[in-house]
């Protein structure tokens, strides 16, 4: 962006400054640390100048908002046209309790729904399965059949809101239940808008909620992508997620690299199915973490958009600009929350949310202050939502697009994250692609290594966590925590039994038999027989049971 003579002059001025002004200042007051780093451990210079971004070409690398390569954002008018969607992830206990929370959130100005499911649901078990011991309703809402889904969505305007569902291995089944519930209310599937997370690769890498081996898991993902192309033009059939990769301990560069590499893997799988790139790529969406290192996070979002656009256009020859744009949801970092002095988490979340907005995300969940202790209380959720509203309405940051674009530090960080991500792409390619890398434990080890390094730094006091290893105060906990109704489990199990007793069991058996045959035939898109089965109230456990028998269950390599 600057001519060579100017950057040379600046470079020599910086050298001179280091030897004079900086040396004098250091002699008077040594810097607080020998080395300053980002949260991810990358070195941070004292001052950034045009010399640090000498190779940056404005038109090639940044461009205008809404234009290739989308570094500065995917919309021409950004938040001036439409604010990000404030989408708070919620779910606990029974479908009735979560339905009430959703109705409350909509009255508070929330603009989209986001459903959290409990552990048994995430693992494809019915609420009364022996494996579900003690897990009912703890981390989300329990959905064992279409009957639960109908209660969960009761009275919600499904034709006007969009719904995000955090579900992975059983994503196709839960999505089918959502579609079936809407259809029973007379709302056609084509008008439904929303997202299923449906990102199985990051489950193998980080969150570990896998059921079936990688190959059939990937087939289910492609079946949903294909079904979405044909039937559900407003639905994002996958949310390619770095969130869990980061929470497992990854650095910003690892989160960026592994998430995008997962995305390319899905693209290749869909292409191998015979889908046209521009038929499905516009519906691919992303989900990134937004952690505590302010500038590093902003740079991460910018680098993600630029890499995705470039690879989609150059490597996969996408023609439709919507195929080039990386649309993303973000969530503030759960692991950064402290159980100590939980009110301080409100501040952490506000800073992280600000980074997400300056990074140009399309939707945002802000964590609640009590989440290192329990599921959030209504009060805590409201403060978290209000945090977004303050940023949107009061801070002024949404008045212009990519306000940090051109900042030497932010552009240098963006370039470095891109370079680190591309180095990882190369390593993954050498290993034979992401599936092989996962089976070899490569991303898992890289993440575990980074997590351990970070913990060591905190334990050694090289990193300060306010309230944990410094600024500690011994105060009793004063915030109220959410209690899950203990009677919910009995109600859920009783309802499940009524569903099993009251349905047409011959129809269920026939639907499950057809599903098993379809599962054995890779030519058949499984969404159709799944829909048929859930419509006659086959339970989640019964449908995944078919797949467990046909596909087998995955056992991961154990190491630490």
């Amino acid at each position, binding site marked *: 962006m600057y001519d060579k003579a100017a950057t040379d002059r600046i470079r020599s001025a910086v050298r001179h400054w280091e030897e004079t002004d900086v040396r004098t200042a250091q002699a008077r007051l040594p810097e607080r640390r020998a080395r300053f780093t980002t949260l991810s451990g990358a070195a941070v210079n004292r001052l950034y100048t045009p010399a640090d971004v000498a190779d940056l070409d404005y038109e090639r690398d940044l461009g205008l908002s809404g234009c290739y390569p989308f570094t500065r954002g995917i919309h021409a008018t950004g938040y001036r046209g439409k604010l990000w969607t404030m989408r708070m992830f919620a779910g606990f206990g029974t479908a009735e309790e979560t339905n009430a929370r959703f109705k409350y959130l909509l009255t508070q100005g929330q603009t989209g729904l986001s459903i959290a499911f409990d*552990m*048994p649901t*995430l*693992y494809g*078990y019915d609420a009364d399965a022996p*494996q*579900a*011991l*003690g*897990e009912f309703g*703890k*981390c989300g809402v329990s959905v064992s059949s279409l009957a639960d889904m109908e209660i969960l969505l009761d009275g919600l305007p499904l034709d006007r809101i969009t719904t995000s569902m955090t579900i992975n291995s059983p994503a196709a089944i839960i999505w089918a239940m959502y579609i079936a519930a809407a259809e029973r209310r007379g709302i056609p599937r084509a008008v439904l808008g929303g997202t299923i997370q449906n990102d199985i690769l990051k*489950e193998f890498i980080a*969150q*570990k*909620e896998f059921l079936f081996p990688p190959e059939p898991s990937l087939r289910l993902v492609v079946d949903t992508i294909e079904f979405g192309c044909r039937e559900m033009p407003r639905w994002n059939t996958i949310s390619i997620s770095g969130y869990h990769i980061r*929470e*497992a*301990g990854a650095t910003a560069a690892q989160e960026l690299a592994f998430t995008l590499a997962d995305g390319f893997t899905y693209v290749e799988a869909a292409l191998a199915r015979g889908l046209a790139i521009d038929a499905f790529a516009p519906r691919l969406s992303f989900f990134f973490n937004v952690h505590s290192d302010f500038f590093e996070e902003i740079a991460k979002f910018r680098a993600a958009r630029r890499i995705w656009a470039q690879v989609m256009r150059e490597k996969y020859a996408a023609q439709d600009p919507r195929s080039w744009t990386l649309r993303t949801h973000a969530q503030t970092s759960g*692991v950064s*929350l*402290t*159980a*100590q002095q939980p009110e301080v988490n409100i501040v952490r979340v506000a800073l992280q949310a600000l980074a997400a907005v300056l990074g140009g995300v399309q939707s945002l969940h802000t964590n609640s202050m009590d989440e*290192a*202790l*329990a*599921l959030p209380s209504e009060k805590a959720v409201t403060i978290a939502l209000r945090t977004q509203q303050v940023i949107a309405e009061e801070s002024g940051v949404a008045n212009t697009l990519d306000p940090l674009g051109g900042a030497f530090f932010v552009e240098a960080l963006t370039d470095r994250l891109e370079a680190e991500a591309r180095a990882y792409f190369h390593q993954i390619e050498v290993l034979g692609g992401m599936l092989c890398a996962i089976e070899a434990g490569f991303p898992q080890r890289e993440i*575990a290594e980074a*997590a*351990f390094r970070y*913990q*060591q730094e*905190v*334990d050694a006091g090289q990193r300060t*966590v306010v*309230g*944990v*290893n410094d600024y500690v105060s011994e105060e009793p*906990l004063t915030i109220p*925590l959410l209690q*899950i109704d203990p009677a919910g489990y009995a109600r859920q199990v009783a309802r499940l039994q009524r569903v099993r007793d009251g349905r047409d069991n011959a129809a269920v058996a026939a639907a499950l038999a057809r599903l098993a045959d379809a599962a054995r035939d890779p030519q058949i898109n499984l969404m159709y027989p799944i829909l048929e089965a859930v419509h006659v109230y086959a339970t989640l456990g019964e449908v995944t049971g078919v797949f467990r028998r046909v596909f087998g269950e995955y056992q*991961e390599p*154990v*190491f*630490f």
Partner: protein
Amino acid sequence: MTQRKIRVLIAKPGLDGHDRGAKVIARALRDAGMEVIYTGIRQTPEMIVEAALQEDVDVVGLSILSGAHMALCPRILELLRREGMDDVLVLVGGIIPDEDVAPLKALGVAGVFGPGTSTREIVEFIRSRVSDASAVDASGLAASAVAVGSERP
């Protein structure tokens, strides 16, 4: 007196797959000179107790972040007792609300470690609690197992 290293089983009971903490602790204990066996995720109480028995461990560390600890821990402690392993030091880590700490300790959990605990604190806790026991030594553990075992019908 024996040179036997402190043996620790790190286990993840229930469905919760969030294994960052379990792996970090496993590695920190290994770096502190302990013999560490990590079960991997999705272990039933029966699998964990079987592994503890097979590996003849001094310590069982349970990592639970899903909120299912009040269902899973009592079952594991009961099975350990049934196998005559009531002298094994049982630790629980994860998201454990304050109000559950006392009931867990009453059941026989020696230590509950929440978010923000340093790995050093856990290493020191184990050393302070197990060094006495291992002075009694492996033969002592075996003897108590037989003694309790003989009381069973």
